[in-house]
Protein backbone atom coordinates (compact mmCIF):
# COMPACT_ATOMS: atom_id res chain seq x y z
CA UNK A 1 0.00 0.00 0.00
CA UNK A 2 2.38 2.65 1.23
CA UNK A 3 5.36 2.91 -1.05
CA UNK A 4 8.26 3.17 1.37
CA UNK A 5 10.86 3.40 -1.35
CA UNK A 6 9.11 6.34 -2.97
CA UNK A 7 8.82 8.11 0.36
CA UNK A 8 12.52 7.82 0.95
CA UNK A 9 13.37 8.90 -2.58
CA UNK A 10 11.33 12.10 -2.19
CA UNK A 11 12.68 12.73 1.29
CA UNK A 12 16.21 12.30 0.03
CA UNK A 13 15.74 14.76 -2.83
CA UNK A 14 14.50 17.48 -0.51
CA UNK A 15 17.39 16.62 1.80
CA UNK A 16 19.86 17.07 -1.04
CA UNK A 17 18.35 20.39 -2.11
CA UNK A 18 18.27 21.71 1.43
CA UNK A 19 21.76 20.43 2.18
CA UNK A 20 23.24 21.90 -0.98
CA UNK A 21 21.53 25.22 -0.34
CA UNK A 22 22.82 25.41 3.20
CA UNK A 23 26.27 24.27 2.06
CA UNK A 24 26.35 27.13 -0.39
CA UNK A 25 25.11 29.59 2.20
CA UNK A 26 27.46 28.38 4.90
CA UNK A 27 30.39 28.67 2.53
CA UNK A 28 29.27 32.12 1.39
CA UNK A 29 28.82 33.11 5.00
CA UNK A 30 32.34 32.03 5.85
CA UNK A 31 33.73 34.02 2.98
CA UNK A 32 31.61 37.10 3.49
CA UNK A 33 31.23 37.26 7.28
CA UNK A 34 34.69 38.77 7.94
CA UNK A 35 34.17 41.22 5.11
CA UNK A 36 30.77 42.21 6.43
CA UNK A 37 32.21 42.63 9.90
CA UNK A 38 34.96 44.79 8.44
CA UNK A 39 32.34 46.88 6.64
CA UNK A 40 30.31 47.23 9.80
CA UNK A 41 33.41 48.27 11.75
CA UNK A 42 34.34 50.81 9.10
CA UNK A 43 30.85 52.17 9.11
CA UNK A 44 30.80 52.38 12.89
CA UNK A 45 34.13 54.21 12.82
CA UNK A 46 32.95 56.59 10.16
CA UNK A 47 29.78 57.26 12.11
CA UNK A 48 31.74 57.80 15.29
CA UNK A 49 33.85 60.50 13.75
CA UNK A 50 30.62 62.13 12.62
CA UNK A 51 28.98 62.07 16.03
CA UNK A 52 32.20 63.02 17.86
CA UNK A 53 33.96 65.33 15.42
CA UNK A 54 36.47 66.55 18.03
CA UNK A 55 38.03 63.12 18.58
CA UNK A 56 40.77 61.55 16.45
CA UNK A 57 41.05 58.05 17.92
CA UNK A 58 38.50 55.61 19.32
CA UNK A 59 39.46 52.81 21.72
CA UNK A 60 37.02 50.02 22.36
CA UNK A 61 36.44 49.40 26.07
CA UNK A 62 34.59 46.69 27.95
CA UNK A 63 30.81 46.96 28.17
CA UNK A 64 29.53 48.07 31.52
CA UNK A 65 25.95 46.96 31.01
CA UNK A 66 23.90 44.56 28.91
CA UNK A 67 21.89 47.46 27.55
CA UNK A 68 24.57 48.44 25.06
CA UNK A 69 26.36 46.62 22.26
CA UNK A 70 29.77 48.29 22.09
CA UNK A 71 31.48 51.14 23.86
CA UNK A 72 34.40 53.27 22.67
CA UNK A 73 36.36 55.95 24.45
CA UNK A 74 36.96 58.94 22.20
CA UNK A 75 40.31 60.69 22.50
CA UNK A 76 41.69 63.87 21.00
CA UNK A 77 45.46 64.09 21.23
CA UNK A 78 45.55 61.48 23.99
CA UNK A 79 43.02 63.37 26.05
CA UNK A 80 39.64 61.71 26.71
CA UNK A 81 36.89 63.92 25.30
CA UNK A 82 33.93 61.61 25.58
CA UNK A 83 32.54 58.17 24.74
CA UNK A 84 30.73 56.65 21.79
CA UNK A 85 28.12 54.03 22.55
CA UNK A 86 26.61 51.57 20.05
CA UNK A 87 23.26 50.30 21.21
CA UNK A 88 19.97 48.90 19.94
CA UNK A 89 16.31 49.37 20.62
CA UNK A 90 13.36 47.64 18.93
CA UNK A 91 11.61 49.90 16.47
CA UNK A 92 8.56 49.28 14.32
CA UNK A 93 10.13 46.56 12.27
CA UNK A 94 13.00 45.22 14.31
CA UNK A 95 16.13 46.46 15.97
CA UNK A 96 17.37 49.98 15.29
CA UNK A 97 21.12 50.18 15.92
CA UNK A 98 22.54 53.59 16.64
CA UNK A 99 25.82 55.11 17.70
CA UNK A 100 25.67 58.06 20.05
CA UNK A 101 28.50 60.34 21.07
CA UNK A 102 28.43 61.71 24.62
CA UNK A 103 30.97 64.26 25.84
CA UNK A 104 32.53 64.31 29.31
CA UNK A 105 29.76 66.54 30.61
CA UNK A 106 27.06 63.99 29.69
CA UNK A 107 25.84 66.01 26.70
CA UNK A 108 25.03 64.30 23.41
CA UNK A 109 27.44 65.40 20.66
CA UNK A 110 25.66 63.55 17.89
CA UNK A 111 23.63 60.49 16.91
CA UNK A 112 23.89 58.31 13.81
CA UNK A 113 21.78 55.35 12.67
CA UNK A 114 23.94 52.30 11.90
CA UNK A 115 21.29 49.86 10.76
CA UNK A 116 17.53 49.50 10.82
CA UNK A 117 14.70 47.90 8.93
CA UNK A 118 12.06 50.57 9.41
CA UNK A 119 9.41 51.33 6.83
CA UNK A 120 11.02 53.16 3.92
CA UNK A 121 9.64 56.66 3.64
CA UNK A 122 8.40 56.73 7.21
CA UNK A 123 10.54 55.25 9.96
CA UNK A 124 13.51 55.27 7.62
CA UNK A 125 13.39 59.06 7.76
CA UNK A 126 15.19 58.68 11.07
CA UNK A 127 18.33 58.64 8.93
CA UNK A 128 17.72 62.24 7.96
CA UNK A 129 19.94 64.86 9.57
CA UNK A 130 16.94 67.01 10.46
CA UNK A 131 15.88 64.28 12.88
CA UNK A 132 19.30 63.19 14.12
CA UNK A 133 20.60 66.68 14.78
CA UNK A 134 17.82 67.28 17.29
CA UNK A 135 19.72 65.16 19.79
CA UNK A 136 22.78 67.41 19.83
CA UNK A 137 23.35 69.00 23.21
CA UNK A 138 20.58 67.05 24.93
CA UNK A 139 21.19 65.39 28.29
CA UNK A 140 19.75 62.35 30.08
CA UNK A 141 16.08 61.27 29.74
CA UNK A 142 15.17 62.85 26.44
CA UNK A 143 11.44 62.93 25.76
CA UNK A 144 9.55 62.47 22.47
CA UNK A 145 6.67 64.74 21.46
CA UNK A 146 4.71 65.01 18.23
CA UNK A 147 5.50 68.69 17.73
CA UNK A 148 6.82 71.81 19.47
CA UNK A 149 9.61 70.07 21.36
CA UNK A 150 10.58 71.57 24.70
CA UNK A 151 14.01 71.92 26.31
CA UNK A 152 15.03 68.28 26.58
CA UNK A 153 12.58 66.91 24.01
CA UNK A 154 12.71 66.05 20.33
CA UNK A 155 10.04 66.13 17.64
CA UNK A 156 8.97 62.69 16.41
CA UNK A 157 9.17 61.89 12.69
CA UNK A 158 5.66 62.36 11.38
CA UNK A 159 3.95 59.01 10.95
CA UNK A 160 6.74 57.15 12.72
CA UNK A 161 6.34 57.70 16.44
CA UNK A 162 7.49 54.18 17.26
CA UNK A 163 10.76 54.59 15.37
CA UNK A 164 11.34 57.98 16.97
CA UNK A 165 10.74 56.47 20.40
CA UNK A 166 13.12 53.61 19.63
CA UNK A 167 15.94 55.94 18.61
CA UNK A 168 15.36 58.16 21.61
CA UNK A 169 15.24 55.16 23.93
CA UNK A 170 18.55 53.96 22.53
CA UNK A 171 20.09 57.40 22.96
CA UNK A 172 18.89 57.53 26.57
CA UNK A 173 20.44 54.13 27.21
CA UNK A 174 23.66 55.36 25.66
CA UNK A 175 23.72 58.46 27.86
CA UNK A 176 23.32 56.51 31.08
CA UNK A 177 25.92 53.92 29.99
CA UNK A 178 28.30 56.72 28.98
CA UNK A 179 28.22 58.17 32.51
CA UNK A 180 29.37 54.84 33.97
CA UNK A 181 32.12 54.41 31.42
CA UNK A 182 33.43 57.95 31.86
CA UNK A 183 33.55 57.41 35.59
CA UNK A 184 35.55 54.23 35.13
CA UNK A 185 38.01 55.77 32.66
CA UNK A 186 38.65 58.79 34.78
Amino acid at each position, binding site marked *: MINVKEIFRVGLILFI*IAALSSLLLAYANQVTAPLIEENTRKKTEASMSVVMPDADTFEQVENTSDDIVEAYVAKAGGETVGVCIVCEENGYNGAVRIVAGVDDEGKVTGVDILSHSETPGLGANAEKDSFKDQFKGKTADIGVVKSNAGANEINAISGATITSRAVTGAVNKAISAAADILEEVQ
Partner: protein
Amino acid sequence: MKGIEVLKRGLITENPTFVQLLGMCPTLAVTTSLKNGLGMGLSATAVLIASNVIISLLRKLIPDKIRIAAYIVIIATAVTLIQMILNAYLPDLASSLGIFIPLIVVNCIILARAEAFASKNTVGKSALDGLGMGLGFTGALCIISAVREILGSGTIWNIQLYGDVIQPASIITLAPGGFIVLGIIIGVINAIKGRHESKAAGERG
Protein backbone atom coordinates in the same frame (compact mmCIF):
# COMPACT_ATOMS: atom_id res chain seq x y z
CA MET B 1 5.49 31.51 -27.94
CA LYS B 2 8.02 34.06 -29.10
CA GLY B 3 10.47 35.72 -26.75
CA ILE B 4 9.02 39.16 -27.33
CA GLU B 5 5.58 37.90 -26.41
CA VAL B 6 6.87 36.42 -23.17
CA LEU B 7 8.34 39.82 -22.34
CA LYS B 8 5.24 41.75 -23.30
CA ARG B 9 3.06 39.48 -21.24
CA GLY B 10 4.98 40.27 -18.09
CA LEU B 11 5.14 43.96 -18.80
CA ILE B 12 1.59 44.64 -19.89
CA THR B 13 -1.00 41.98 -20.56
CA GLU B 14 -0.29 39.90 -17.44
CA ASN B 15 1.37 42.59 -15.37
CA PRO B 16 1.95 40.91 -12.01
CA THR B 17 0.82 43.89 -9.96
CA PHE B 18 -2.02 45.46 -11.92
CA VAL B 19 -3.48 42.38 -13.57
CA GLN B 20 -2.50 39.34 -11.54
CA LEU B 21 -2.45 41.20 -8.20
CA LEU B 22 0.50 39.24 -6.94
CA GLY B 23 3.15 40.47 -4.55
CA MET B 24 0.78 42.91 -2.91
CA CYS B 25 2.56 42.98 0.43
CA PRO B 26 5.90 44.41 -0.71
CA THR B 27 4.03 46.54 -3.24
CA LEU B 28 2.04 48.30 -0.56
CA ALA B 29 4.79 48.28 2.04
CA VAL B 30 7.61 49.90 0.09
CA THR B 31 5.88 52.19 -2.38
CA THR B 32 6.13 55.20 -0.13
CA SER B 33 8.76 56.85 -2.30
CA LEU B 34 9.92 56.46 -5.88
CA LYS B 35 13.44 55.52 -4.83
CA ASN B 36 12.13 52.63 -2.75
CA GLY B 37 9.81 51.45 -5.48
CA LEU B 38 12.62 51.32 -8.00
CA GLY B 39 15.00 49.65 -5.54
CA MET B 40 12.52 46.96 -4.59
CA GLY B 41 11.51 46.39 -8.18
CA LEU B 42 15.06 45.94 -9.41
CA SER B 43 16.06 43.66 -6.52
CA ALA B 44 12.99 41.53 -7.11
CA THR B 45 13.79 41.38 -10.82
CA ALA B 46 17.28 40.07 -10.10
CA VAL B 47 15.98 37.38 -7.76
CA LEU B 48 13.16 36.51 -10.14
CA ILE B 49 15.54 35.91 -13.03
CA ALA B 50 17.93 33.88 -10.89
CA SER B 51 15.23 31.70 -9.34
CA ASN B 52 13.45 31.19 -12.65
CA VAL B 53 16.68 30.01 -14.27
CA ILE B 54 17.64 27.64 -11.46
CA ILE B 55 14.17 26.17 -11.13
CA SER B 56 13.85 25.76 -14.87
CA LEU B 57 17.17 23.90 -14.87
CA LEU B 58 16.06 21.60 -12.07
CA ARG B 59 12.46 21.22 -13.19
CA LYS B 60 12.79 17.58 -14.23
CA LEU B 61 14.63 16.52 -11.09
CA ILE B 62 12.18 17.82 -8.50
CA PRO B 63 9.30 15.49 -7.62
CA ASP B 64 5.88 17.03 -7.70
CA LYS B 65 5.13 16.39 -4.04
CA ILE B 66 7.91 18.52 -2.67
CA ARG B 67 8.11 21.07 -5.44
CA ILE B 68 6.87 24.05 -3.44
CA ALA B 69 9.21 23.31 -0.55
CA ALA B 70 12.08 22.85 -2.99
CA TYR B 71 11.29 26.03 -4.93
CA ILE B 72 11.02 28.16 -1.84
CA VAL B 73 14.30 26.82 -0.49
CA ILE B 74 15.97 27.72 -3.77
CA ILE B 75 14.45 31.20 -3.72
CA ALA B 76 15.43 31.77 -0.10
CA THR B 77 18.96 30.61 -0.87
CA ALA B 78 19.24 32.96 -3.83
CA VAL B 79 17.95 35.85 -1.74
CA THR B 80 20.22 35.19 1.23
CA LEU B 81 23.19 34.76 -1.09
CA ILE B 82 22.52 38.04 -2.86
CA GLN B 83 22.14 39.74 0.50
CA MET B 84 25.47 38.37 1.73
CA ILE B 85 27.31 39.31 -1.44
CA LEU B 86 25.89 42.82 -1.42
CA ASN B 87 26.75 43.30 2.23
CA ALA B 88 30.29 42.07 1.73
CA TYR B 89 31.32 43.63 -1.55
CA LEU B 90 28.89 46.47 -2.20
CA PRO B 91 28.08 47.86 1.24
CA ASP B 92 26.80 51.16 -0.15
CA LEU B 93 24.29 49.48 -2.42
CA ALA B 94 23.40 47.09 0.38
CA SER B 95 22.54 49.89 2.74
CA SER B 96 20.10 51.37 0.23
CA LEU B 97 18.58 48.06 -0.94
CA GLY B 98 19.24 46.03 2.19
CA ILE B 99 15.87 46.38 3.81
CA PHE B 100 14.00 45.13 0.75
CA ILE B 101 15.96 41.98 0.17
CA PRO B 102 14.53 39.82 2.97
CA LEU B 103 11.05 40.88 1.87
CA ILE B 104 11.64 39.34 -1.52
CA VAL B 105 11.57 35.77 -0.15
CA VAL B 106 7.88 36.13 0.53
CA ASN B 107 7.05 37.99 -2.64
CA CYS B 108 4.49 35.65 -4.14
CA ILE B 109 5.37 36.75 -7.67
CA ILE B 110 8.58 34.78 -7.42
CA LEU B 111 6.98 31.54 -6.31
CA ALA B 112 4.03 32.05 -8.63
CA ARG B 113 6.30 32.42 -11.66
CA ALA B 114 8.39 29.43 -10.55
CA GLU B 115 5.25 27.37 -10.25
CA ALA B 116 3.37 28.66 -13.28
CA PHE B 117 6.15 29.24 -15.76
CA ALA B 118 9.68 28.15 -14.88
CA SER B 119 8.61 24.64 -13.90
CA LYS B 120 7.17 24.08 -17.37
CA ASN B 121 9.45 26.01 -19.71
CA THR B 122 12.99 26.08 -20.99
CA VAL B 123 15.76 28.02 -19.32
CA GLY B 124 15.90 30.79 -21.92
CA LYS B 125 12.18 31.43 -21.83
CA SER B 126 12.13 31.31 -18.05
CA ALA B 127 14.86 33.93 -17.86
CA LEU B 128 12.90 36.13 -20.26
CA ASP B 129 9.74 35.58 -18.26
CA GLY B 130 11.62 36.57 -15.12
CA LEU B 131 12.87 39.70 -16.84
CA GLY B 132 9.44 40.63 -18.21
CA MET B 133 7.58 39.99 -14.95
CA GLY B 134 10.30 41.71 -12.97
CA LEU B 135 10.23 44.79 -15.14
CA GLY B 136 6.44 44.80 -15.09
CA PHE B 137 6.60 44.69 -11.31
CA THR B 138 9.21 47.45 -11.25
CA GLY B 139 7.15 49.65 -13.56
CA ALA B 140 4.05 49.16 -11.46
CA LEU B 141 5.93 49.94 -8.27
CA CYS B 142 7.35 53.10 -9.81
CA ILE B 143 3.91 54.34 -10.83
CA ILE B 144 2.38 53.66 -7.42
CA SER B 145 5.30 55.03 -5.47
CA ALA B 146 5.54 58.19 -7.59
CA VAL B 147 1.87 58.93 -6.93
CA ARG B 148 2.21 58.21 -3.23
CA GLU B 149 5.38 60.24 -2.87
CA ILE B 150 3.96 63.26 -4.68
CA LEU B 151 0.69 63.24 -2.75
CA GLY B 152 1.92 61.95 0.57
CA SER B 153 5.30 63.56 1.08
CA GLY B 154 5.18 66.40 -1.42
CA THR B 155 8.43 65.26 -2.97
CA ILE B 156 9.59 63.26 -5.97
CA TRP B 157 12.90 61.38 -5.77
CA ASN B 158 13.38 63.25 -2.49
CA ILE B 159 13.18 66.63 -4.24
CA GLN B 160 10.75 69.06 -2.65
CA LEU B 161 7.92 69.88 -5.01
CA TYR B 162 5.77 72.55 -3.48
CA GLY B 163 7.72 73.68 -0.47
CA ASP B 164 5.60 74.96 2.39
CA VAL B 165 2.74 76.13 0.23
CA ILE B 166 0.83 72.84 0.32
CA GLN B 167 0.85 70.51 3.28
CA PRO B 168 1.01 66.98 1.79
CA ALA B 169 -1.54 64.37 2.89
CA SER B 170 0.66 62.06 4.90
CA ILE B 171 -2.09 59.42 5.14
CA ILE B 172 -1.22 58.52 1.56
CA THR B 173 2.14 57.20 2.75
CA LEU B 174 0.48 55.24 5.58
CA ALA B 175 -1.25 51.90 5.25
CA PRO B 176 -4.75 53.14 4.30
CA GLY B 177 -3.37 55.40 1.59
CA GLY B 178 -1.48 52.48 0.08
CA PHE B 179 -4.67 50.49 -0.40
CA ILE B 180 -6.65 53.41 -1.76
CA VAL B 181 -4.00 54.64 -4.21
CA LEU B 182 -3.49 51.15 -5.61
CA GLY B 183 -7.26 50.65 -5.92
CA ILE B 184 -7.70 53.89 -7.81
CA ILE B 185 -4.75 53.22 -10.10
CA ILE B 186 -6.08 49.78 -11.05
CA GLY B 187 -9.53 51.30 -11.59
CA VAL B 188 -8.10 53.94 -13.90
CA ILE B 189 -6.14 51.32 -15.82
CA ASN B 190 -9.29 49.26 -16.22
CA ALA B 191 -11.14 52.29 -17.50
CA ILE B 192 -8.45 53.05 -20.07
CA LYS B 193 -8.36 49.42 -21.11
CA GLY B 194 -12.15 49.34 -21.39
CA ARG B 195 -12.11 52.36 -23.69
CA HIS B 196 -9.44 50.76 -25.87
CA GLU B 197 -11.42 47.56 -26.10
CA SER B 198 -14.66 49.24 -27.00
CA LYS B 199 -12.84 51.32 -29.59
CA ALA B 200 -11.33 48.17 -31.07
CA ALA B 201 -14.74 46.54 -31.05
CA GLY B 202 -16.24 49.60 -32.75
CA GLU B 203 -13.67 49.43 -35.53
CA ARG B 204 -14.34 45.75 -35.94
CA GLY B 205 -18.13 46.07 -36.05
